[in-house]
């Protein structure tokens, strides 16, 4: 739990009981006039503790602990790519935002002849979504009685993504860790039975370790995490053993609440969820708090919607996605087809583009730079006016691209018509419907 300015002040030199330290109180070396002023800045996270050269070790550790995020940041790395999960601070995305997207991994078994091929396909997969390049994050290699070390080595050679090593047998795990040398995989899992050996391996190979309890047993899971931590493993991932919709929603919610609202350090780690082949369950894991999601197979028709879902849920609600201003071609338009204009707020863009596209009518959509606001908001804020629309028309050289000089403006900004006629001499300005849903009918009946 973060400390208040006054609580921090009590840990700084001005409040020290040690005279040697206290004499540096209010020394200004941190750049602030007093220790109290510095404490206030620390509380607001606008200053760094390292700016004070005299703070005592004990105070330092207390302050650092208080500044630690409630969900520890865990990093796994592959030969070239890495993944960071954790550092979350809220239970609902509207409270602030979700920060680090959960890694989506595809499981292969060491008995599977095509394990490396699957890894290669997962590695190569990427898909464009509103200008973002979406990818999966890694391969989970499961020891199922085959040659684990050889499979890990082959998978490592086939992908630059990080790995998860799925085995509860310490000897197999060590063989896998050796084969994964040069990367930092997640090792899954330590249980009540094997935790000592697994913790020793995780500490020795400096990899994060997942701890697994059964049937969503929070207390057993917390106890296990504490034991593993006591054995020198700092980077921990929690697997409460919940595999279905109900139990995973319940236990992930309970654990995340403990970490964030109760500052319960014992469970202040990311979670791993196993979704099998159930895309909806994977979707639940993404929305409800998993840091790692393991799928049993790789299929683009399932992975693409999941990656979009993840991008959506992890969009910062305070910074809505904007689309790139410019001209968008819908349904392969010819120079005779209609030109429409709207703003670059993503939802506005999608509403308009989707209506036109689904109608089958070809058209040109000019997306003006309205700083990511919707039509009415942007108009009210002066970000969507005749000048900006004209700038878009000219900047995108539409006169050269089109055989006509007609533009449809949103019905909500009909008032811009006069000004726009002045800004775009020789152009015919048409006032379109207020709502995107009425556009296809408007184009069918009014454009000809």
């Amino acid at each position, binding site marked *: 739990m973060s400390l208040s300015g006054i609580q921090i002040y009590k840990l700084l030199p001005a409040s020290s009981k040690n005279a040697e330290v206290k004499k540096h109180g209010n020394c200004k070396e941190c750049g602030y006039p007093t220790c109290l002023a510095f404490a206030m800045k620390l509380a607001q996270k606008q200053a760094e503790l390292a700016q004070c050269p005299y703070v005592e070790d004990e105070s330092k550790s207390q302050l650092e602990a208080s500044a630690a995020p409630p969900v520890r940041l865990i990093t796994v790395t592959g030969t070239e790519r890495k993944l960071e999960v954790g550092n979350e601070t809220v239970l609902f995305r509207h409270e602030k935002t979700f920060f680090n997207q959960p890694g989506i991994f595809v499981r292969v078994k060491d008995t599977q002849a095509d394990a490396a091929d699957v890894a290669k396909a997962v590695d190569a997969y990427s*898909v464009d979504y509103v200008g973002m390049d979406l990818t999966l994050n890694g391969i989970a290699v499961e020891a199922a009685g085959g040659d684990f070390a050889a499979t890990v080595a082959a998978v490592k050679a086939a992908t630059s993504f990080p790995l998860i090593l799925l085995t509860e047998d310490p000897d197999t795990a060590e063989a896998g860790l050796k084969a994964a040398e040069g990367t930092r995989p997640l090792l899954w899992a330590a249980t009540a039975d094997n935790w000592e050996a697994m913790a020793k391996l995780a500490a020795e190979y400096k990899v994060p370790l997942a701890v697994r309890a059964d049937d969503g047993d*929070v207390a057993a899971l917390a106890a296990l995490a504490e034991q593993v931590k006591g054995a020198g493993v700092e980077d921990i991932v929690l697997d409460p053993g919940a595999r*279905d919709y109900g139990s995973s929603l319940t236990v992930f919610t309970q654990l995340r609440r403990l970490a964030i609202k109760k500052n319960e350090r014992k469970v202040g780690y990311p979670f791993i969820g196993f979704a099998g082949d159930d895309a*909806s369950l994977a*979707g639940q894991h993404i*929305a409800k708090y998993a840091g790692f999601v393991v799928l049993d197979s790789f299929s683009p028709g399932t992975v693409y919607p999941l990656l979009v879902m993840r991008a959506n849920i992890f969009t910062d609600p305070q910074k809505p996605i904007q689309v790139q201003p410019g001209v968008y071609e819908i349904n392969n338009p010819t120079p005779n087809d209609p030109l429409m204009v709207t703003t670059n707020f993503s939802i506005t863009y999608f*509403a308009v583009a*989707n209506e036109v596209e689904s109608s089958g009518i070809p058209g040109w959509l000019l997306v003006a730079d309205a700083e990511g606001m919707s039509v009415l908001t942007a108009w009210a804020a002066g970000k969507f006016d005749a000048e900006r629309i004209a700038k878009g028309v000219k900047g995108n050289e539409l006169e050269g691209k089109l055989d006509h000089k007609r533009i449809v403006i949103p019905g909500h900004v009909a008032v811009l018509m006069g000004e726009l006629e002045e800004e775009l001499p020789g152009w015919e300005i048409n006032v379109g419907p207020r709502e995107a849903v009425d556009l296809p009918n408007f184009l069918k009946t009014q454009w000809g």
Partner: protein
Amino acid sequence: MPAIEIPKEKWSGKVREITLGATADEGGTRAKTVTVGGQNSMPFLHFEGDSPNPPAIAIEIQDRKPADWSSVLLDAWGDVTEDVVAWAKAAEEKGADVILLKFGLHDGINADYARKTFRKVLEATGLPIIVFGPGQAELDNEVLVAIADEGKGERLVLGVCDDKNYRTIVAAALGNEHIVDARTAMDVNLSKQLNILINDMGLPMERIMMDPTTAALGYGMEYGYSVMERLRLAALQGDSMTQQPMLVTPGEEAWRAKEARAGEDVPEAWGDWAERAVNWETITAGALVESGADILALRHPESVKRVRAMIDALAK
């Protein structure tokens, strides 16, 4: 080591229960009714609250074979899309809790046609019915007012009812014992405000479904998701005018998305069309289930099956 205590939220508020449909005893003709709402926790957190009624699934059927539906959808339903009676029966067989009868926008629409079509559906199924007009202000009024009268006492849901047409639709619901689907743009305050306006006309809160507008996966889904979470949190915190069960339309929205509709000329990375399309609908619906949806209107039979499995697992 001290035991870990699971933190539980104790909410003062509770979502209202709304019952769709009326049996013969209750003045209608439905074989069964469907009740939604009644929760006093965030969705499916059984360790701290009660969720007496799982979310219900409505299957959308249309008065005529839809001209703009993807072939993936039309193929899944087959010939029944040619005949609204056969379609209603097929939807019931595919596991609908409620039938959503949506009128398409075409030349043949008028009050008389709407009455006759509705009457056929009413007789073809014993399930509660939601009726959506064609989505054009004047026609919606004409269709919905006629059906409200034709189905008097059936406790239909009439939609959509927004800030422009609510006076007409609410008046029709008031006189004929129906429920309205109160739709606003995705905004907590707008939802609340429309509920108040409708209630001020005398329609009891137990007859107002709240519809915060659905956006498909990839097309603003997260806005709806967060508005629904905020509405539900407000309801649980005791804000009476937000304590309505929520109706969402992931079927209609997901199938408007290019990802569901287009089978050709799309990037290879989009994968198999039918697989992707059904996932588009189910993942949209699934996210809304997690954020508090009480009635989900779906289109594809496979989506119905999967969303049902998800709800059954969560409701346990």
